C-alpha cells in the first residue's frame, strides 16, 4: 500500500524540494517550489493525522531494516498533531506571506532562503516523525541551522546578535541532548526510543542514566524556551523577517517540548522510580514562574513583536504546566494548547507581517490608528487574540477549559494553579487591549494615515487562519482526539 509510505514522504518531500528551490532562479519559482512542497507535506500530515486517530502508532522501518536495528519512523497521535502544526504553519505563512517575504528578503538570496525554509520544515518534521534518539539529534541540527539562516536572512542588523545568541544557546541545548543520549547509549546499547525504554530496566548502575536525564531535560528545556532559559527567544522572534516569526513562533519551540515529553514520559518515567515526581517538581515551578513573569513583561513591552514573543514564553508555560500535572486531562490540556496556541500566535504574527508591509516600525505608537486603515487585517489579529485570551467560542478556550479542569482535579495546589492560569489570562487581556486601543482609538500617525488594506488574496489566507481559531473552538474534535490519544499514550507508560 502506498499509504504505508506516508511517514517517509512527509519528511522526504520538503527535504528533496530544498535543493530544487536552491537551484531555481527568477521571479517566484523558488517560492512556488517551497509553497508547493510545504502544501504537499501538509496534505500528507492530514492523512497521517486521520490514520493516527485509529491506531496507537504507525511504525515505518527505514530501508526495511526492522527496529531496533534500523531507523524507525513512528507516528503517534502526538506526532501527527505536531506534523499538522509544522506543515500547516509553514504553508499558511508561505502562501499568505509572499508579499512580505518579497520585501524582506533580497532577491539575490531568495532561492537560498526558500531552500533553508524547506530544510527547517524537513528538520522539524523529521524530529517529530522519528523514533530514534540519534536521528532526532540529526534532524534537530538540520532544523536549527536552517532556522538560524531564516532569522538572519532579513538583513536587519539587529537580527545578527539575536541569531548569534540563539545559535550559542541552541548549540548548548543540542549538545546537552547529545551528551544525554550518548550516556544512555553507553548503558543500553540502543538508540531506538521504544527499545531504550525497555532496556533501561536492565541497567544496574543508574548513575549515568540519571546524568542523562538531567542533560536531556535541560537541553530540551533550553531549546524550548522554557523560563528561565528563554533569553534567546524574544529577540530572535522580534528581529527576524516577519513571516519567519509567524512560522517559528507557531511550531519550533513546540517541537522541542514534544521531544522533552517523549523522553520524560516514555523513556524515563516507566523505567526510573520516582521520575514522575522529579519531573513535575522540576517543571511546575518553572511553568508557573514563566507564565507570570513573561506575562508581566509582555504587559510593559511596547514593541509589538517582542510583546508577543514574551506572550509566547508565557504560553509555553501553559503547555509545560499541563504536562507537569501528570494526568490525562493535564496532558490533554498541554498538548491541545500546542495546537491552539500555534493557531493563535501564527495568525497574530502573520497579521503583524501584513501590517509591516505598510509600516516601517512596529511599536505601539507607530501602529496608532492602523485599525481604521486596515480593518480586516486587524480584525483577524483580534480574532486570534481572543483565542489567545481564551474567550469562549475560540480554540484557546478549549485549552483553558482542560487546563483549569486538570488543575482542579489535582487537589489543594490546584486552586493556586487555577489562579495562576486565570490571572495570566487577565494579563493577556491587558496587553492585547493596549494593541486594540492603539490600533483603533488613537489618531493615526503620518505613516499609518497613508496605509491601505492589503490585497484580497492575502486577506483570504489570513482569515482562513483566523477562522480556524473559531472553527477549532467550536469543533475541537480532531485536535482533541489526537491530544487525548497522545495523553493516554504518554501516560500509558506510567504503570
Amino acid at each position, binding site marked *: 500500500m502506498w499509504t504505508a509510505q506516508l511517514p517517509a514522504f512527509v519528511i522526504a518531500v520538503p527535504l528533496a524540494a530544498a535543493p530544487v528551490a536552491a537551484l531555481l532562479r527568477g521571479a517566484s519559482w523558488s517560492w512556488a517550489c517551497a509553497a508547493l512542497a510545504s502544501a504537499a507535506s501538509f496534505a500528507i500530515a492530514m492523512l497521517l493525522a486521520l490514520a493516527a486517530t485509529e491506531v496507537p502508532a504507525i511504525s515505518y522501518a527505514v530501508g526495511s531494516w526492522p527496529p531496533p536495528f534500523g531507523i524507525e519512523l513512528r507516528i503517534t497521535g502526538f506526532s501527527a498533531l505536531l506534523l499538522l502544526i509544522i506543515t500547516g504553519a509553514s504553508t499558511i505563512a508561505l502562501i499568505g506571506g509572499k508579499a512580505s517575504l518579497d520585501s524582506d528578503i533580497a532577491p539575490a538570496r531568495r532561492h537560498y532562503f526558500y531552500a533553508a525554509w524547506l530544510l527547517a520544515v524537513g528538520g522539524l518534521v523529521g524530529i517529530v516523525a522519528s523514533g530514534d534518539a540519534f536521528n532526532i539529534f540529526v534532524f534537530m541540527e538540520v532544523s536549527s541551522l536552517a532556522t538560524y539562516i531564516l532569522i538572519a536572512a532579513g538583513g536587519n542588523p539587529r537580527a545578527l546578535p539575536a541569531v548569534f545568541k540563539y545559535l550559542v544557546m541552541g548549540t548548548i541545548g543540542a549538545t546537552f541532548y547529545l551528551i544525554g543520549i550518548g550516556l544512555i547509549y553507553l548503558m543500553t546499547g540502543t538508540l531506538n526510543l521504544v527499545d531504550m525504554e525497555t532496556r533501561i530496566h536492565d541497567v544496574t548502575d543508574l548513575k549515568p542514566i540519571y546524568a542523562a536525564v538531567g542533560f536531556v531535560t535541560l537541553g530540551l528545556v533550553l531549546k524550548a524556551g522554557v523560563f528561565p532559559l528563554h533569553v534567546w527567544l524574544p529577540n530572535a522572534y522580534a528581529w527576524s523577517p516577519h513571516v519567519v516569526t509567524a512560522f517559528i513562533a507557531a511550531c519550533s519551540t513546540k517541537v522541542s517540548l514534544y521531544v522533552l515529553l517523549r523522553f520524560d514520559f516514555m523513556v524515563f518515567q516507566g523505567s526510573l522510580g520516582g521520575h514522575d515526581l522529579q519531573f513535575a517538581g522540576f517543571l511546575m515551578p518553572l511553568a508557573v514562574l514563566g507564565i507570570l513573569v513573561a506575562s508581566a513583561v509582555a504587559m510593559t513591552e511596547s514593541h509589538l513583536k517582542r510583546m508577543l514573543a514574551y506572550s509566547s514564553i508565557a504560553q509555553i508555560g501553559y503547555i509545560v504546566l499541563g504536562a507537569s500535572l501528570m494526568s490525562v486531562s493535564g496532558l490533554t490540556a498541554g498538548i491541545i494548547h500546542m495546537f491552539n496556541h500555534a493557531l493563535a500566535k501564527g495568525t497574530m504574527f502573520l497579521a503583524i507581517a501584513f501590517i509591516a508591509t505598510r509600516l516601517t516600525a512596529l511599536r505601539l505608537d507607530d501602529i496608532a490608528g492602523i485599525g481604521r486603515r486596515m480593518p480586516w487585517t486587524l480584525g483577524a489579529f483580534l480574532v486570534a487574540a*481572543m483565542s489567545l*485570551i*481564551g*474567550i*469562549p*467560542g475560540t480554540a484557546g478556550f*478549549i485549552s*483553558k*477549559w482542560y487546563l*483549569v*479542569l486538570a488543575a*482542579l*482535579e489535582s487537589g489543594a495546589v490546584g486552586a493556586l494553579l*487555577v489562579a495562576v492560569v*486565570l*490571572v495570566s*489570562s*487577565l494579563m493577556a*487581556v*491587558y496587553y492585547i*487591549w493596549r494593541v486594540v*486601543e492603539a490600533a483603533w*482609538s488613537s489618531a493615526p500617525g503620518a505613516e499609518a494615515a497613508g496605509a491601505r488594506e492589503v490585497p484580497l488574496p492575502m486577506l483570504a489566507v489570513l482569515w482562513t487562519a483566523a477562522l480556524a481559531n473559531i472553527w477549532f473552538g*467550536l*469543533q*475541537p474534535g480532531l485536535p*482533541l482526539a489526537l491530544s487525548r490519544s497522545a495523553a493516554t499514550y504518554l501516560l500509558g507508560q506510567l504503570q
Partner: protein
Amino acid sequence: MTGATLIQLALALPLAGAAFIALARSRPNLREAVSLATATALCIAVWSLLPEVMAGARPSYELMTLLPGLAIRFTVEPLGAMFAALASLLWIVNTIYSIGYMRGNREHHQTRFYIFFAVSIAATMGIALAGNLLTLFIFYEMLTLSTYPLVAHKGDPQARRGARTYLFILLGTSIGLLLPAMVWTYAVAGTLEFTPGGVLEGNIGDGLAAVLLLLYVLGIGKAAVMPVHRWLPAAMVAPTPVSALLHAVAVVKAGVFTVTKVVIYIFGLDFLAHVPAEKLLVYLAGFTVLAASLVALRQTDLKRLLAYSTVSQLSFVVLAALVLAPLSEIGAAIHIVAHAFGKITLFFAAGAIYVASRKTDVRQFAGIGRRMPWTMIAFTIGAISMIGVPPTAGFVSKWYIIAGAFQADNYFVLAVLAVSTGLNAAYFLPIVFRAFFQDEDQAPPREHGEAPWPMVAALTTTAVFTLLFFVFNGPVVDLELGILGGGP
C-alpha cells in the same frame, strides 16, 4: 413554527440584521428601517415562543456538541422567556429612540453603533435562551465584547478610560471567577445543564458550596454586586440609548438573570438553604442596595445617579433570589421586568433632556418640566416606580419580594427594603420637584422645547408600560410560577 425554529430565528435575526445594516451603511434611512424591521421581527419571533412556554413546554434546540458531554444548547424556560421577551420588546422602542437621539445629537459612526447594538441583542438572546451554563457563558462574553465599542463610542480619552474599566472588570470577573466556578461545577457535578432542583446537591460539601456561590455571585460581574459594580458608572460615557437598553436592561439584567438561574437551576433552593455562608451574601447584596443608594444621593450627573440607582436595584434582584422563598424568586423575576420599564424611561428622559438642552447636571434642571412636560412626566412615573409606589410596576415586584421575605421570616430584607425606599425617594423626588415647581435660574443659552418626536414617543411608551404593568402583571406572574415546580 416549532419552538426550535423560533429559537434559531431569535438568535439569527439580530445577526442578520447587523449584516444588512452594514450593507445599508450609505443610506441612513434604509439602515434605520432595517434596524426597526429586525427589532420587530425579533420581537414577533420571541413572543411567539411564549404561549408554548406558558403551556408548560420547554422548547429546546441543540446547536452543536462542543466537548464530550457539553453541548451548545438552548432551552426556553419561563425566566429566560420573560427576559428575551422583555429585551426584544424594548429593543423596538429603543431603536425608535436611538434614531431620534443619534440624529438629534449628530453622532459620528452611526452605522457601527447600530451594528454592534444588533450584535449585543443577539448575545442577549443567547443568554436568555441558553440551556446550560456553558452556552450562557459563551454569550455572556460575547455581550461584553460587543458592547465595548458602544461604550467607547465617543472615542475621546474619557470614553476610552470608561470603556477600559468596563471591559476589564467584566472580563476580569468572568474569566477570573465565573469560569473557574463553572469548571468546578462541571468537575463535581459532571453537567452544566440548567436542571430544576439544581445539580449540585450531594456532589459538593456545604463549606465548598459557599465558596462556589461566592465565586458565582462576584464572578457574574454584570449583576454589579459591590465590590464589582464600578464598571456600570464607568459605562455611562456611552451614548444614552446604550445606557438605556444595555445598561439598564440587557447587560445588567443578563447579570441578575444569570445569578437567578444559577441559584434556581444549578444550586437549587433546597440545597442553598443549608449552605452556611449564603446569609453572608444576602448581607452583601443588602449592603450594595443601601450603599449604592447613598452614593446615588450624592451624584449630580443624572446618568451617574441613574447608574448607581441601577446598581442598587440590581442587588434587589440578587437579594430577592437569595432569600430562597418561592415568592421572593417570583419577586426577583418580576423585578427584572419592573425595573427595566422604569429605568429605561428614566434614561430615555435623561437623553431627551441632553439632546434638547445639553444639560446633564441635576442642579440645572430647575423649571425644565415646563419646557419638556412629556419628558418630565415620564421621568416622574419612572421615579415613582423606582421608589415602589402604586400605580407603577415597581410596586408589584416590591410586593412579591416583601411577601417572600415574610415567607422566609427574613427581617433583614424587610429593613433593607424600607430604608432603600426612603433613599430612593430622597434622590428622585428633589429632581422632580425642581423640574416642576422651581423657576429657571436663568434663561437657557438657546430656546428649546421637547426633544425630537421619536424620543418623546419612545419615552412615553415606556412610561405607559410602567403604568400598565401595575395592572396587567398577571401573565408574567403565571409564567414565572413555572420556574418553581417545573410546570405551571
